């Protein structure tokens, strides 16, 4: 099952995919109403706890950034203010030279995990989403990389559109990922190329931190990151999870 959280006519609703009579994509609310995708405000599809993110978790992307050895997964944390839903806008600061998208499989924890072995790890997953974890590389400093000014900017991580039940994704280790900028494919990969796969990540993390329902792991991005500009439409797609759309806007949209 796929479930979204949307704001519509003054309240927040759980929503499911629904094709409108004219063939357009839309959502169906639990109370029977239906609406077009563009007539609702899409929120992150679940109540978000700790946001855990992976750097350089695809062999090809690590190579792209001239990064070789890895003793353990490169994990960093993010705050909730960075998350926005499907069809949202993300600010691209003026004067920045290199801001890029990162299409990532997001793994949402559904059940408390502490010292979990990888063979049992997927039992602790509620479901999966798509994430687009933007980075502004101009702000990278060599302290606690990647520093939050690069990776934890307000509205800099789109997530959604749906939370797809784990039961519908029997193997998160063989999903195609693609990113399109203004309709042109710019990034392509497959989760089978993760350096540390989903079960191993849950085993690793739960060996020192208790994961609880709502915690989410953004599992890293494959190669193919290029600069994007204000006005660009970025769509991240993962097999079985849908398409996550985001638009970059200039400082002027934020009164700067």
């Amino acid at each position, binding site marked *: 099952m796929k479930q979204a959280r949307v704001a519509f006519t003054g309240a927040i609703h759980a929503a499911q995919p629904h094709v409108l009579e004219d063939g357009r994509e839309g959502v169906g609310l639990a109370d029977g109403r239906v609406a077009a995708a563009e007539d609702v405000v899409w929120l992150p599809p679940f109540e978000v706890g700790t946001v855990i993110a992976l750097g350089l978790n695809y062999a090809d992307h690590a190579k792209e950034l001239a990064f070789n050895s890895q003793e353990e997964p490169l994990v960093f944390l*993010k705050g909730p203010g960075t998350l926005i839903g499907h069809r949202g806008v993300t600010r691209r600061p003026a004067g920045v030279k290199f801001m890029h998208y990162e299409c990532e499989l997001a793994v949402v924890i559904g059940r408390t995990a502490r010292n979990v072995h990888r063979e049992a790890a997927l039992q602790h997953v509620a479901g999966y989403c798509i994430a687009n974890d933007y980075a502004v590389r101009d702000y990278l400093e060599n302290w606690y990389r990647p520093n939050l000014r690069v990776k934890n900017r307000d509205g800099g991580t789109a997530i959604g559109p749906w939370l797809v039940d784990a039961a519908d994704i029997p193997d998160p280790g063989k999903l195609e990922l693609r990113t399109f900028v203004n309709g042109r494919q710019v990034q392509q990969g497959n989760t089978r190329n993760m350096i540390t796969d989903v079960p191993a990540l849950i085993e690793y993390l739960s060996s020192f931190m208790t994961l609880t329902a709502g915690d989410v792991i953004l599992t890293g991005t494959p190669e193919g990151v290029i600069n994007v500009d204000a006005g660009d439409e970025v769509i991240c797609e993962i097999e079985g999870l849908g398409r996550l759309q985001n638009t970059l806007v200039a400082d002027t949209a934020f009164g700067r």
Partner: protein
Amino acid sequence: MPCVQYTVPMDVAPYRLSGRVYGALLNHRSALAALGNSVNEAPYKAPPKAPVLYIKPRNTLAGNEAAVTVPRQVPELEIGATLGIVIGRTACRVSERTALEFVAGYLIVNDVSVPHARYYRPSIRQKARDGFCPLGPRVVARALVPNPDALQICVYINGQLQQSATTADLQRPVAALLADVTEFMTLAPGDVLTVGVAHPAPRVRAGQRVAIEIDPLGRLETLFVGEPS
């Protein structure tokens, strides 16, 4: 192994904590000074420019009198005694001049780490372990703390004074830190931002009791225990 439950003072007056704790790295002058010229060498190549932050996730939060586990693999833990700023109003792009108006109050934070010498890309295993962020014993309203940039922080281990530091030595004092952080990241009511830890941070072993005192915020006690086999 059963999951250890930590009691967190989430309901303390005057504001409920959100459970989000952000720490400012190297914001105490002594901590930056201790690195000497190495800040200009690889891998850092330059001292920090913008505030460098890290996150203490919700599994790290613990209350006063919590028992914190020293992992088997390490002999000692580092005590990061620091001041926590509790946000009272949504703070986005605040100016230094008005920054303190966004503060609900202050509390003591014990930012526990596995000691690590390098700050380039440290493993979150060193700061994000369960229970590694005791805080409390309560939030003290801003009105009762006229100058957050002149607070004495004392750390006692088994009753012996081990560290004495002051918030007068911050690279970015409280208002400046809030201004520079909220330039790129909104802080929400109940969020906690810690102001940095003085060097050298004292270390503890299993079996020791740590008390951090900041007048007028009170006293935060933490017991360190060994990992059950």
